[in-house]
């Protein structure tokens, strides 16, 4: 209706609305694509969820801004025979596997991979299967990577194998991906071109199943990068939206509604009730908000519901009680309320249907403006290490980044991504709130 027409006069408010819409979209996207349990599980950072992820690397799109590209992460099931990128040579006989998988990949980056891993899975009764792998470099070297028995859950990390290290006379990855002449130099020369990984597997029992996956950890990952536990940061960026928004919205709404109702009730009944509310407010206003919250977080519970509850309880009896009271005193004297008493309206009806609606327009802008401050509060507590330990949130990311020295190590993405989302949220609600303030409280418009 004409609220929207008025709204259109404030371009910043429109931008704010669009930003809020985007954040809400992110929140919905998060909830729909990654169900809550799934998000909590992923955020625990279990090996089976994170083994393909490199550690502490920025998002892939940083390559758009670089001349020297960072290597991307990749992984492939070598034993997946549907896959056309892998050439299979099958010498199996009598139900005993004897296969050679050849996989070629281009390497044109100017930094080294973080790690290369071979993951093997197999089933055997008595005799272990055998695995052997070589890498053929663009300059024709044929480097034996590994040969030996395969345990049922086989993991071979290139950089942690001492034999491989000796063979290439350097760190394994560096040794393979550099020219052999420069390997003794301080910064060896990276050898670009096509590399070939040849993997042979053999089994010595019938009915043994073998799978081998090649996982290469690059220097960039995903849309948001990874953290120190190899977790995909995008999980926390996405889920930070619904958690932050819900926290902010419930806190802001809950506090406004309760404060308003209590203030109206006190004003309406007057006398002892009013006095009591006033005194509670005065005492509460002297209580230090953040220290109490920190104490609750430290000694009682870090659960987001506990923190939300305490936040609301501590904020109900705020100075707003007095601000609203001043208005309610005026409203109470309105003769429309007197008329309502004459035709028999109950106290409750008068408070909720005659007093509160009058103050709501005055309240809405403040409510909108206070949403981001509670989003920030939740983030701040997380930054202070009092976030709900299970939940992936924006504040948690900043906290992790901070405790892991992200800024010292120039891992800016880790802090900037959540910080940017927080700032956008703050701006969006502020822009809408200020416009609403001018619309609902037109006297401010002149100033």
């Amino acid at each position, binding site marked *: 209706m004409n609220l929207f027409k008025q709204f259109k006069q404030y371009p910043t408010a429109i931008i704010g609305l669009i930003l809020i819409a985007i954040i809400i979209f992110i929140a919905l996207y998060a909830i729909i694509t990654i169900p809550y349990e799934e998000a909590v599980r992923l955020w625990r950072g279990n090996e089976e969820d994170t083994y393909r992820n490199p550690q502490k690397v920025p998002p892939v799109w940083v390559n758009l801004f670089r001349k020297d590209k960072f290597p991307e992460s990749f992984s492939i099931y070598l034993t997946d025979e549907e896959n056309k990128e892998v050439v299979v040579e099958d010498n199996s006989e009598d139900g005993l596997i004897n296969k050679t998988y050849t996989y070629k990949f281009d390497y044109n980056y100017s930094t080294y991979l973080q790690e290369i891993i071979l993951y093997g899975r197999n089933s055997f009764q008595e005799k272990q299967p055998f695995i052997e792998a070589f890498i053929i470099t663009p300059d024709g070297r044929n480097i034996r990577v590994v040969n030996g028995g395969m345990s049922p859950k086989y993991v071979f990390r290139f950089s942690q194998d001492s034999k491989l290290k000796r063979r290439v006379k350097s760190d394994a990855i560096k040794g393979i991906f550099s020219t052999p002449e420069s390997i003794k130099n301080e910064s060896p020369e990276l050898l670009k071109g096509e590399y070939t990984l040849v993997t042979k597997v053999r089994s010595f029992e019938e009915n043994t199943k073998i799978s081998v996956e090649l996982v290469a950890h690059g220097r960039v990952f995903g849309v948001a990068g990874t953290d120190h536990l190899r977790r995909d940061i995008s999980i926390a960026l996405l889920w930070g939206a619904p958690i932050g928004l819900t926290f902010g919205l419930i806190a802001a709404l809950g506090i406004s509604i309760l404060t308003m109702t209590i203030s109206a009730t006190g004003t309406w009944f007057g006398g002892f009730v009013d006095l009591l509310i006033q005194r509670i407010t005065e005492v509460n206003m002297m209580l230090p908000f953040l220290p109490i919250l920190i104490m609750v977080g430290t000694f009682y519970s870090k659960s987001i519901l506990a923190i939300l509850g305490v936040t609301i309880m501590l904020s109900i009896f705020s100075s707003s009680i007095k601000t609203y009271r001043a208005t309610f005193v005026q409203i109470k004297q*309105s*003769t*429309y309320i*007197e*008329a*309502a*008493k*004459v*035709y*028999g*309206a*109950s106290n409750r*009806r008068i408070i909720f*249907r*005659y007093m509160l*609606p*009058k103050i709501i327009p005055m309240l809405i802008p403040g409510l909108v403006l206070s949403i981001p401050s509670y989003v920030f509060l939740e983030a701040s507590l997380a930054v202070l290490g009092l976030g709900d330990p299970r939940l992936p949130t924006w504040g948690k990311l900043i906290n992790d980044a901070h405790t892991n020295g992200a800024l010292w190590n120039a891992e800016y993405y880790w802090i900037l991504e959540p910080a940017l989302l927080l700032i956008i949220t703050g701006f969006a609600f502020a822009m809408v709130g200020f416009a609403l303030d001018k619309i609902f409280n037109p006297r401010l418009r002149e100033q």
Partner: protein
Amino acid sequence: MENKTEKDVVLSVKDLRVWFELKKFGFGSSGFVRAVDGVNFDLHNRESIAIVGESGCGKTSLMKTILGLYKPREGSITYLNKNISKFQKSDLKWYSSQVGYVQQDPFDAIAPFMSIRKILEEPLIINGVKNKKEREDRIRNVLDEVRLTPVDDFIEKYPHMLSGGQQQRVVIARAIILQQHLLVADEPVSMLDASVRVEVLRLLEKLQEKYGLAVIYITHDLSTVRYFSERIFVMYAGRLVEKAPVDDLLANPKHPYTIALLTATSEPDAANAKVYKEIPPGEPPSLVHPPPGCRYHERCSKKIEGLCDVKEPSEFDVGNNHLVSCWLYK
């Protein structure tokens, strides 16, 4: 109940006193404002009375006490033989559907955030009209009754979209929608444009006749009492000093205060408010420390030394149902 004789007593006020405590620092009393201090009168079925008196004499306090908004300090108000101070919850509910209140400032008297429909629906909902269709019908009827027509043009509107006169019609509609028997109109036209005052008074007069309402009409403008009042009560400093049928009082005022009031309003073309201030001369007395004897004696040109300033006059009947509280008529 109502169909005995036509002149049955609807409302009976006996020695009513309404005092407001003056609070010191929010507690402790430093005296009382004696807004109503010994008021007696009977109001009959279908009767309409006017109460006149200058600003601050206690008219509104008297009405609000009758409406149950203030508690009397002493005395009683009896509505259809029931003392309203002793009402139980169910009596209160019943009473709230019996009395209608038309206030002075129509814009303040209706909630600005409610549509006209909602404003009129509230009393119906509160008084147990459960059927939505019935409520709608009654709202439409009453809007028609107060001539807010065509009804469809008004029913969805909000108070700020209406003129003062139209707002006051909404207030009147609300005061009769429960089929109330007693209407209290506290200066219903004093805030309105001079051009619509007569229309609104005519409307009240018409409704009074049509529904046989008992009406208490409060005003400080004597020129408007003729519209629909049968008797006039003159109020001074918390008391009724003269009660008489309209024609009798206007033709033959007895109390010196009434005479002074009438002189003020009969000035042919003077702006009423201005003259009103000059005559009668002097200020009304303090309601916290009212003077001994007759409360008017300090301003009275005919006061009897040693009597008027010592002893309170009682009510004297000068005949023709004309009562006056003045020692001149003992």
